[in-house]
């Protein structure tokens, strides 16, 4: 269980998160949504311990995250960030093998090798094992980094905008893989996602931030409503439900809204 208590974070005097207290349900997929500058990524980086909160505390399994050793934390929480500047010439298999570092500290044993194979197989990347990361397409690269994070075998997975710059097919592949990680392996997944439709269709839980504070939080069925999304994004929403899921349509305002704007 990840619990945040009265988290406050400011950069250079500017408050980014203000008194945030939330709980992330275990073995579920939680999406962090909200407009740009709402503090989503900052919140995720605080949990990942890549940033330090100004005040408040983060509890991982009931223990203050700040009290874990770096090597210990790496076996609890794995973080996937965007890698625009990754320039290391490694093969996919070598990259995934580094996901085992928190466990093996450099010397791979039989179990590590098995976990590497499992992670690669889980995402269907077997045919790319020997390929160099810098020669892969954007979608394949993202899958490769995800495989590394999976091989880390942590209870908690944090992903910062994993769907950025991906085509729909790769985005769906990543979200389905995350879904399976929750359902089949009982992992807790928290991700920042911009596309509300991906959040609504693949998450169990949604946490909406706005201006550094929690706007709303709860199971998808409860919180994906027209009024809530409208207030969050300042757009006119239409929410269609079918047996295949939600479609949140915000592309063109309804006639009624248009008249309202013009009048």
């Amino acid at each position: 269980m990840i619990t945040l208590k009265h988290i406050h974070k400011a950069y250079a005097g500017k408050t980014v998160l203000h008194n945030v207290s939330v709980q992330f349900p275990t073995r579920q997929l939680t999406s962090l949504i909200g407009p740009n500058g709402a503090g989503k990524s900052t919140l995720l980086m605080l949990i990942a311990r890549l940033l330090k909160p100004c005040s408040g505390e983060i509890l991982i399994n009931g223990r203050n995250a700040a009290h874990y050793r770096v090597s210990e934390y790496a076996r609890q929480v794995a973080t996937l960030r965007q890698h625009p500047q990754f320039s290391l010439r490694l093969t996919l298999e070598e990259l995934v093998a580094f996901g085992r570092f928190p466990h093996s500290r450099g010397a791979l044993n039989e179990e590590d090798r098995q976990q590497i194979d499992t992670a690669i197989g889980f995402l269907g990347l077997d045919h790319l094992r020997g390929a160099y990361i810098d020669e892969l397409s954007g979608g394949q690269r993202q899958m490769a980094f995800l495989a590394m994070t999976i091989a880390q075998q942590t209870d908690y997975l944090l992903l910062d905008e994993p769907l950025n710059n991906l085509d729909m097919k790769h985005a769906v592949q990543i979200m389905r893989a995350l879904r399976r990680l929750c359902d089949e392996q009982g992992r807790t997944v928290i991700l920042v996602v911009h596309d509300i439709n991906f959040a609504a269709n693949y998450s169990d839980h949604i946490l909406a931030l706005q201006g550094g504070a929690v706007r709303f939080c709860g199971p998808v069925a409860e919180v994906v409503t027209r009024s809530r999304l409208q207030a969050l994004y300042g757009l006119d929403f239409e929410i269609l439900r079918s047996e295949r899921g939600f479609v949140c349509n915000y592309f063109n305002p309804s006639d009624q809204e248009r008249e309202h704007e013009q009048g």
Partner: protein
Amino acid sequence: MIRRALPLLFVLLCSVSLLVGVKQLSWAQLFAGSTDAWLTLTASRLPRLAALVLAGVGLSLCGVILQHIVRNKFVEPATTGGLDAAKLGILLALTLTPEAGALGRMLFALVFCFACSLLFVAIIGRLRVQHSVLVPVIGLMYGSVLSAIAEFHAYRHNILQNMQGWLLGDFSRVVQGNYEVIYLILPIVLLTYLYAQRFTVLGMGQDTARNLGINYVATASLGLLLVSVTVSVTVICVGAIPFVGLVIPNLVALQFGENLQRTLPIIALSGASLLVACDILGRVLIYPFEVPIGLTAGGLGGVLFLALILWTRR
């Protein structure tokens, strides 16, 4: 193929290196048990070969460690100010504590090189604009400043000519009894192998390193310390040798990737081979005189480096 050919090439170069020199030496004489031939071998040729191999291995490993810490392919001790800082250190040792001897000079070089490298990495980390060519440019400017201070100091103490003499990489001074400090590179090589995986992770960036449970600052500092020891030892023993640390890791990365645990042996062997080859070249070019290795390595390395830039841009 290359992986198998490399050790053969290395052994071949080593045996040629043993036989080339002003004093005629042949396997026949050695087998005949000529004491004169054996003396040449053990007092001059073998120490020289050992120094060449160790310096080659050390410098190429230095390059690769720095490249992973700074996350830039164009850095090595000569383009990050490390070499100039070592120079400055030695110079200060010469003027402040002339009686300190080689070990004292090495300590000074080590401390200066380490401090200046830390500062360089801190400066690079604070850069807002990340551009791969910017880093070595800043490094070269930084090195020039350090070098200018060193030269000013040397000028004031009337040792400018002297300094230029011993700073140019040259193995002809290496004989039994005055080069042994270079064996310090051996434990450095060992430590680099032990930390190969960590250094690779440093190349993935600070956040990834932390995510994988690695103490970034401590590991990077250790890397810089290893680099500083190697640089100061080689400068003390044989002078400055540019480009080896730059060219070798890049060429190896193109062919074999950058997983250090796998590529370190190849890098080490290639670095040693390049230096031995440059040395042989320097010994035969104007036989019976010698061209200092600083010139041959600088020349050959420069050409290889240019080729590399043109090659990777394509």
